[in-house]
């Protein structure tokens, strides 16, 4: 017995040796490289990217990394900053995201991190980055409480607390809404936090909440909830769902004869809704930081370039990543070095940055401040909601 026990210890000893030899190579302290400007005067820095690249949410990660790469290419061409992107896959799992972050911060010695994709991952990675003094910026993390993790945590993705009130306000204005029904996914962190915002806004605006219904991931049949909602005769349905479930909900609702408009959260905002639900998607109202149809040269240039590069329309994830990259590059340029603290300070001071999403600033906590655009689906297309 005691021998097999020794065996275990020796396994660990070997592992420890392995890791020692593996990391002794690339592990220099970050201070040495600071101010190490490239020959042509550009500030160079290493930036880590944690993204969901394999598994169920690989689509998000792909859009994000595409947006980042496109932006970085342009930035390099401009020649003021020279950023090396080092991308790690988190597979949408907290453990893997944390390991990736450790690798980027300690083995790769990056100056800043962009990502991870999910809010759940950020809740695990954020505190660790903050502790290590590495600025980290989420470009797709919308849940409440993310920038509040610490001084080094930022995001340029528009939080539900900004998006949802905007769309609800406009909907109330246009349809003279008095009574609403709420439907949300209660086992998902995004849809649940979206619901919390919806409920608060509805109460603040003095709307009567007729009924609150929930659904769970993987559910296919929403008829029971929708029948109940239909019978309460709301003016508007507040639906906090990811587009997958949301599109099906709209489809089933329209079939049932529910013709009132829907207000959705960030997760509902996707061209996929139209693809899945078809005509039934008409009447969906969402607030978005990103509108591809915006009459703006910058936006149209981006759309054209993205299409050329990747052969598809950019979605909000690509757009937010694109602007995120620029925000960071800006900060690095201002900081004038790849020093983590300098970059953090420069990032925090960002004010009135003009991106494809609009004019952006960070508030004291590191959350994005911007004006969302409210869109609605009409005749199978996203259009400005006025």
């Amino acid at each position, binding site marked *: 017995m005691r021998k097999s026990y020794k065996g275990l210890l020796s396994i660990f000893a070997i592992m420890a040796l392995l890791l020692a030899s593996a990391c002794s190579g690339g592990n220099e302290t970050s201070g040495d490289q600071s101010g190490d400007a490239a020959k042509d005067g550009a500030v160079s820095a290493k930036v880590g990217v944690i993204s969901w690249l394999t*598994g*169920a*949410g*690989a*689509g998000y990660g792909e859009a994000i990394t595409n947006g980042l790469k496109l932006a970085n290419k342009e930035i390099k061409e401009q020649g003021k900053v020279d950023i090396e992107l080092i991308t790690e896959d988190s597979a949408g799992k907290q453990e893997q995201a944390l390991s990736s972050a450790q690798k980027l911060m300690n083995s790769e010695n990056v100056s800043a991190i962009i990502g991870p994709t999910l809010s759940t991952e950020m809740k695990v990675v954020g505190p660790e980055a903050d502790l290590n003094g590495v600025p980290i910026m989420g470009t797709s993390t919308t849940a409440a409480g993310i920038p509040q993790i610490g001084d080094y945590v930022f995001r340029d993705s528009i939080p539900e607390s900004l998006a949802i009130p905007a769309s609800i306000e406009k909907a109330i204005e246009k349809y003279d809404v008095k009574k609403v029904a709420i439907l949300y996914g*209660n086992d998902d962190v995004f849809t649940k936090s979206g619901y919390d915002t919806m409920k608060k806004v509805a109460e603040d605006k003095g709307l009567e909440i007729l009924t609150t*219904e*929930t*659904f*769970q*991931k*993987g*559910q*296919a*049949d*929403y*008829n*029971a*909830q929708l*029948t*109940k909602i239909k*019978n309460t005769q709301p003016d508007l349905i507040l639906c906090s769902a990811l*587009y*997958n*479930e949301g*599109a*099906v909900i709209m*489809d*089933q609702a329209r*079939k*049932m*004869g529910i013709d009132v408009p829907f207000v959705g959260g960030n997760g509902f905002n996707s061209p*996929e809704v139209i*693809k*899945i*639900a*078809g005509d039934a998607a008409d009447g969906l109202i969402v607030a978005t930081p990103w509108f591809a149809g915006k009459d703006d040269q910058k936006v149209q240039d981006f759309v054209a370039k993205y299409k050329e590069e990747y052969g598809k329309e950019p979605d909000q994830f690509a757009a937010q990543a694109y602007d995120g990259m620029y925000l960071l590059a800006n900060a690095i340029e201002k900081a004038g070095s790849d020093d983590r603290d300098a970059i953090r300070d420069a990032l925090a001071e960002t004010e009135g940055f003009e991106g494809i999403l609009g004019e952006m600033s960070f508030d004291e906590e590191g959350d994005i401040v911007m004006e969302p655009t409210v869109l609605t689906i009409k005749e199978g297309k996203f259009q400005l909601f006025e």
Partner: protein
Amino acid sequence: MILEQLINGLTLGSIYAIVALGYTLVFGVLGIINMAHGEIFMFGAFMGVVITHTLQLPLALAFVVAIAVTALLGLFLELLALRPLRGKKGVSHLAPLISTIGVSIFLENLAHHFFGAGNRPFNTSFSEISVQIGSVTIYAVQLVIFAIAVLLMVGLSFWLSKTKAGKALRACAENLEAASLLGVNTKKMIMMTVVIASAMGGIAGILVGMAFNSVTPQMGLTMGLKGLAIIILGGMGSVRGAMAGGLILGLSETMIVVFGESGYRDAIAFIAIIVILLVRPQGLFGQAAPEARR
């Protein structure tokens, strides 16, 4: 409203019942819980998407293809995951369970790769047809689903009790060894069982696609676990039990929404499992296992 909700519940229940019939058939003959049944069902649904939406071909063809593909999956399941375990010495009775869990994980992730993680629409003009009776709208799909469920149940009962092949199958269910001694080709019978059960999963998949317009790789897990709950509720291996259990679960899931606790909707199935197993382990329609089997 209650009437509409009853129809909702019956529709959902009928689909559950068809899924559960597949489980019950396999359990009845082989004594195995096929954890991959939900994923086979999911593949059936995706075949419907591919045929009706991607290729824009008629719905009838979707049924044929779904049945064919899921039957083939059933065949592979039997040949690769179940047969190698049969009659092998030292294999625990848990082995088929674990093996089919493996198949289910594999299929789920295979679907991710083939079809993507997202929801796929299932557009067919058939799902638009409806009848208005008073304030209640009934869709043709709902009627079809109910009819197919009843038909499958009656057909299966009849086939098991009256036809020669069915009797052979039941002989297998009683005792594999004895059946093979009596000249029943047990290998063929087992294969047939798994294939038929899988094809029923395929049918259920198409029906779900038609009824709810919602097809994702994860649906297999959700539906599979529900099916599992149903056969335990109704009694393992009981055809009537699968039908009754399906309807009970469908109706109670709908009713819990009606009475306001939609958050616990998914838990009903599992609470039912636990309660039934503790109070009446043989299920509502099952027979108590003879003591001698201990």
